């Protein structure tokens, strides 16, 4: 039967096959030393299971398959293992690889081995494992583990089994001789493969230049029941390429980037079939193979069955090599084989041919002429590519174009190089281009990964900052509330002793609730992570999260319940409301982020997300409003402006975030030189304008508020806002600076523009800073009403310390960031390195300054004047703020004639009430201070010590927290330990605090 199909192209190099078919297959001598590489196949290298000095028998496993795509390695002969070390291996790169070196004893003593009695009687899996155990990998050239291919029947429908007996490369006759002498074994091996894969059709493809092999095959095939065809095809190189063979025999093309099994075809080499026969019927592992020794430098070119690991020198000597005329030693065929420069290299499972060529036989390629695009390469390309174009693209490093011209469909058969009249080493160009593209892609993946990680880190840091801020506020509120509770108790002057016992319970519950929340958050994060990456065990995680949610809920309830019993309802409500508002805000942010992400990637249901976001916004506003309302003592008229202000601020912030995002996107685009940069720039400017407008509006509103305020020009909150602005600006300036440096480093054309932008930002920052500086001194005289000057100083001092600390931390981050940038710049030999170095030094010195300042300040913390009237003081200041707010409102209302009279009255009464309250609080604080001072006088030392202890415990908690964060970041294994420590530290701190609070009562 002959084929009606053909593949494109192909060449007819001189075959030179007759030389090595004159003699029957000989058995090569056992060399003194066998060098058995651990990696003779595609996939993971096998793992050594013997050690130096061991005596091994022929056929004994000396290295085991490591992983799915790997095979066993067996001792080819008996002897002693003298070394397990790196040795030259037959590889195109000439590299060294781990080998087991066996000193043979010449006895060639077999280990006990036996074939299967009836391979059809055992389960297929066992049969495949048996084959795998016998170390069989593809004998055709690539060396793909055979058992993996035999599994293809599991998840593919295999219609056709194709046996490759083409041996299309010139010189090689190993398969030819195998078929001539052992066709029956091959047919039986095919039967085993067919038993495993159950194809409906088996085809053996063979070129018409092997008439004797064809005849032997036809005779042997009579004995089989398989639906087997021997397809004789015209000789043309590279008809033995898997894809070409499949096209030739079946007319089907294997789709690009897929495997033959995807079109229902499995391809095996006849040599592999023979090896399977040896293993299944005789239990002989793959320890030897037929190899063609040929070339003009050999006196007796022929095929021999040689042990795996036999050095080429032994083989060449057996074939009568004339070393003086040996010029080129090729392992494999002349078209796709590779040269080796050492004869100590061993043969391996895939070594089908060794060509000892003389100079005249394979002279060095003449120097390449320029490509004249004659198109001869195109006419012979079996992959139907345009080799001439690929050559130009590879030469010009236009890799995108090369990929577009299907460079990766090139099978490197060398037909194009063979026919090229200009003697251009085309295959080398393609290998170069492929390697470059692969390296580029790897680089791209790496940088993408780094970018994602960086962004995640940024987001996390921001979140942490926000959380910290929220916690701080929470603590302040808690303290105020606790104070209020105490105050109530003082006022009642009844059942004082009863409450103290309930207090620790509450705190413990709170800790429990917090711990539960933390755990829940972590679990949620893990779940999210798992979902994103599609990892296993999502279900388990989800269950955990649900459980933890329930636990957290329970803990929260347990905490809330006693609190409800103990404290008065309104303050609890406020707390709850505040939490609600915060949660709503977080959710809103999350939703916004999700939306932005979805918009960016253009995936997911945008409309749904947007509607969700809107709903969340409404909820957030409602929660915020409710909270504000509650906080201001149910004063609707008070709450509205604040809420509005907040809303405006949120708007401005979200606008700013958008601007930032757009800008970073723009930078990315500019870097990548996309044509959309101009458009994006316009978009960014638009966003910027929007943001500016929003900000201006917000600032106006803020200014209006502050202007209306009767007494001090700026409230602490406003100063805070200012400060935040300043910090945000500073961050912006830093970011812009970094971007600028990056741009300079990358020689971006936008540098000039960016410089101007940085200057502008800097000036803005300066303005904001000066504004803030001018505002800051104001609050110092503000606490005039506070009667005791000392605590104020202390608190002020404390604030400074915190500021310093955070400044210092920020600076440290900057320093490390700058250092990292510097390292990258140095690695890429950027011209901006010098500049960056100076910048890093500057940052470092700044950081040192800050640190020393902080240390100086920190020394003062331990001073004995520390007394803690904080809560009371806070009470007073809260009252003051409220009062001020009310006053402002009243003033505005008064100036606003449109307001009805009764509302004004309400406001007035409210102001009066608040004034009263403020007064009371102040008095209480005074009284308390006095009491405290007295107490301190009475038990002074104890109190101080306790306080120091408390401070230390707090510090320990902070430290533990930081360690925990770090551990979480680094995902170290001792995370749980650290968290344990954190909880312990927290409890300790709580205990001391309790004692302290009892004392200070």
């Amino acid at each position, binding site marked *: 039967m002959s084929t009606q199909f053909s593949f*494109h192209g192909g060449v007819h*190099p*001189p075959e030179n096959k007759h030389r090595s078919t004159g003699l029957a297959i000989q058995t090569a001598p056992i060399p003194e030393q066998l060098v058995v590489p651990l990696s003779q196949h595609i996939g993971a290298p096998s793992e050594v299971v013997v050690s130096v000095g061991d005596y091994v028998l022929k056929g004994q496993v000396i290295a085991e398959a490591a992983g799915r795509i790997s095979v066993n390695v067996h001792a080819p002969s008996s002897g002693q293992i003298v070394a397990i070390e790196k040795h030259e291996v037959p590889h195109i790169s000439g590299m060294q690889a781990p080998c087991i070196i066996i000193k043979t004893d010449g006895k060639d003593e077999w280990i006990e081995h036996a074939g299967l009695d009836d391979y059809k009687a055992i389960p297929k899996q066992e049969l495949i494992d048996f084959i795998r155990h016998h170390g069989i990998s593809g004998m055709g050239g690539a060396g793909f583990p055979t058992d993996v291919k035999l599994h293809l029947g599991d998840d593919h429908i295999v219609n056709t089994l194709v046996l490759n007996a083409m041996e299309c490369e*010139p010189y090689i006759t190993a398969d030819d001789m195998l078929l001539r002498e052992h066709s029956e074994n091959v047919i039986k091996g095919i039967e085993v493969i067919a038993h495993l894969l159950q194809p409906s059709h088996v085809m053996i493809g063979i070129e018409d230049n092997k008439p004797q092999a064809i005849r032997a095959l036809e005779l042997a095939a009579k004995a089989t029941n398989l639906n087997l065809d021997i397809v004789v095809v015209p000789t043309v190189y590279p008809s033995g390429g898997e*894809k070409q063979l499949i*096209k030739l025999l079946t007319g089907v*093309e294997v*789709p*690009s*980037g897929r495997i033959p099994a995807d079109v229902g075809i499995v391809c095996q080499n006849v040599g592999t079939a023979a090896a399977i026969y040896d293993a299944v019927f005789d239990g002989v592992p793959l320890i030897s193979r037929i190899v063609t020794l040929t070339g003009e430098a050999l006196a007796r070119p022929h095929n021999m069955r040689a042990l795996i690991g036999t050095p080429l020198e032994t083989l060449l000597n057996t074939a009568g090599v004339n*070393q003086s005329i*040996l*010029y*080129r030693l090729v392992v*494999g065929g*002349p*078209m*796709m*084989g*590779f040269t*080796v*420069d*050492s004869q100590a290299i061993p043969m391996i499972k895939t070594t089908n041919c060794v060509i000892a060529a003389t100079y005249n036989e394979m002279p060095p*390629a003449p120097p390449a*002429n*320029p*490509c*004249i*695009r*004659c*198109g*001869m390469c*195109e*006419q012979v390309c079996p*992959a*139907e*590519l*345009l080799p*001439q174009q690929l050559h130009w693209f590879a030469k010009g490093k*236009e890799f*995108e*174009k090369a*990929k*577009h*011209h*299907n460079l990766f*469909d090139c099978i*490197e058969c*060398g*037909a194009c*190089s*063979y*026919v*090229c*009249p*200009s*003697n251009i*080493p085309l*295959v080398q160009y393609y*290998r170069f281009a492929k390697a470059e593209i692969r390296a580029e892609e790897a680089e791209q993946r790496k940088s993408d990964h780094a970018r994602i990680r960086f962004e995640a880190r940024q987001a996390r840091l921001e979140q942490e900052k926000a959380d910290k801020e929220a916690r701080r506020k929470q603590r302040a509120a808690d303290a105020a509330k606790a104070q209020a509770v105490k105050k109530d108790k003082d006022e009642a002057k009844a059942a004082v002793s009863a409450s103290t016992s309930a207090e620790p319970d509450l705190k413990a519950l709170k800790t429990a609730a917090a711990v539960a929340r933390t755990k829940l958050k972590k679990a949620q994060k893990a779940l999210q992570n798992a979902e994103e990456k599609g990892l296993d065990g999502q279900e388990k995680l989800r269950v955990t999260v649900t459980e933890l949610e329930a636990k957290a809920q329970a803990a929260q309830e347990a905490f809330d319940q006693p609190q409800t019993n103990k404290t008065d309802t309104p303050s609890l409500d406020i707390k709850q409301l505040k939490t609600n508002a915060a949660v709503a805000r977080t959710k809103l942010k999350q939703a916004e982020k999700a939306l932005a992400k979805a918009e960016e990637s253009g995936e997911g249901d945008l409309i749904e997300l947007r509607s969700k976001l809107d709903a969340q916004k409404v909820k957030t506003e409602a929660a915020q409003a409710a909270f504000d309302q509650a906080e201001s003592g149910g004063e609707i008229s008070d709450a509205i402006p604040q809420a509005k202000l907040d809303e405006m601020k949120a708007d401005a912030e979200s606008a700013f975030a958008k601007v930032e995002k757009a800008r970073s996107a723009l930078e990315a685009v500019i870097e990548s030189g996309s044509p959309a940069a101009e458009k994006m720039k316009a978009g960014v400017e638009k966003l910027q304008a929007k943001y500016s407008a929003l900000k201006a509006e917000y600032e106006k509103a803020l200014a209006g508020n502050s202007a209306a305020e009767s007494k001090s020009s700026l409230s602490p909150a406003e100063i805070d806002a200012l400060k935040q602005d300043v910090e945000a600006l500073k961050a912006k300036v830093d970011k812009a600076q970094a971007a600028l440096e990056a741009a300079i480093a990358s020689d971006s054309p936008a540098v000039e523009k960016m410089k101007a932008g940085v200057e502008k930002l800097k000036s803005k920052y300066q303005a904001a800073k000066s504004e803030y500086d001018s505002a800051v001194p104001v609050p110092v005289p503000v606490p005039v009403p506070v009667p005791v000057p000392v605590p104020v100083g202390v608190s002020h001092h404390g604030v400074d310390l915190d500021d310093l600390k955070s400044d210092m931390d920020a600076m440290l981050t900057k320093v490390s960031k700058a250092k990292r940038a510097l390292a990258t710049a140095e690695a890429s030999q950027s011209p901006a390195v010098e500049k960056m170095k100076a910048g890093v030094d500057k940052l470092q010195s700044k950081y040192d300054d800050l640190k020393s300042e902080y240390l100086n300040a920190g020394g003062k913390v331990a001073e004995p004047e520390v007394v803690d009237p904080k809560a009371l003081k806070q009470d007073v200041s809260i009252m003051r703020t409220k009062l001020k707010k009310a006053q402002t409102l009243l003033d505005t209302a008064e100036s606003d004639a449109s307001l009805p009279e009764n509302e004004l009255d309400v406001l007035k009464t409210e102001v009066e009430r608040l004034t009263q309250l403020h007064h009371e609080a102040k008095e209480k604080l005074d009284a308390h201070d006095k009491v405290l001072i007295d107490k301190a006088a009475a038990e002074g030392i104890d109190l101080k010590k306790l306080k120091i202890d408390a401070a230390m415990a707090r510090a320990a908690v902070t430290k533990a927290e930081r360690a925990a964060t770090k551990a979480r970041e680094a995902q170290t294994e001792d995370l749980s330990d650290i968290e344990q420590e954190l909880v312990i530290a927290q409890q300790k701190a709580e205990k001391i605090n309790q004692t302290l609070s009892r004392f200070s009562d």
Partner: protein
Amino acid sequence: MALIRTSSPHLHKASSTSDVMRLVVLATLPGLAAMTFFFGWGTLINVIWACLLAVGFEASIVKLRKRPLGFYLKDYSALVTALLLGLALPPFAPWWITLVGVFVAIVIAKHLYGGLGQNPFNPAMVAYALLLVSFPLQMTTWNAPFVMINGGESWNVLGFSDTLLLIFGGIEPPLFDSLTSATPLDVMRHRGGLTTEEVWSAIPVLAEGIGAWHAVSAAYFMGGVFLIYRKVFTIHTPLAILATLAIISSLFYALDPYQYADPFFHLTTGATMLGAFFIATDPVTSATSNRGKIVFGIGIGVLIFVIRGWGGYPDAVAFAVLLMNLSAPFIDQYTQPRSYGHAKANRGMKGGM
């Protein structure tokens, strides 16, 4: 002996660029012989003169570009360019016409663009077009085939030495006028109201001398077939050109046989055969894929007919080829073959630009 390390493949077909060029030179010989036989020694002298000039210019420019001299001279590409230009020039073209033409072809059209393989336009055709535009008189004076001289009784072409004198002396011998005549394409264009049939019977160059052009075309055709047989180029481009020209001229001839010439006339006069087999198949400047070559050839066929029919120049091959050279990179982008394992061919160009 130390073993060498090289990349696969380790075998090379024993063919080289110079072999390709030598084959092309060989294939033009029938045409050159026919030209000499019918139009006298002029063409042979032109070709030899052009080849000498080409080698000289090539050597000096390669030297100037500091490239290995022998290596580049051995590729014979300059000789092929000169040969084609010499064949295309009128047989009695004065020596300086050839000089200017070869200079333009080798120095400007080829080496200023980067040498062999880098030139976007066919050097011989750039030179021809430039000469045609610059020296219309000399470029359109074609001599009569010998069959028209003295009744064609014997092979009485101008003697070799006389021709040499004519080309290099620049003096017009008294014989000159009697030796020149219009070309068939000329008379077909400038026939002044005569129908095609009348032109055929009235004008001597068509009535008596057309056989010379047929013979020359046949010789080029033979050379071309030889090159296709030797796989120097594929059949795509010449077939596309000739088929397109034949189809279009048939169409017009069928519509109005009085005004348009028959397809055979178009295929066998002027430089159609020389252009189809030797000029348009220049691989450097043509489209590269098989499909691209077909598109390229169709373009040339159409342009030849259009320029012959309605253009201002008697023959159109040079301009048609140059115009299609211009579009070859674009054609390449849209005529990639469908690669093995791909459902369809890629189109356009990704990356860069």
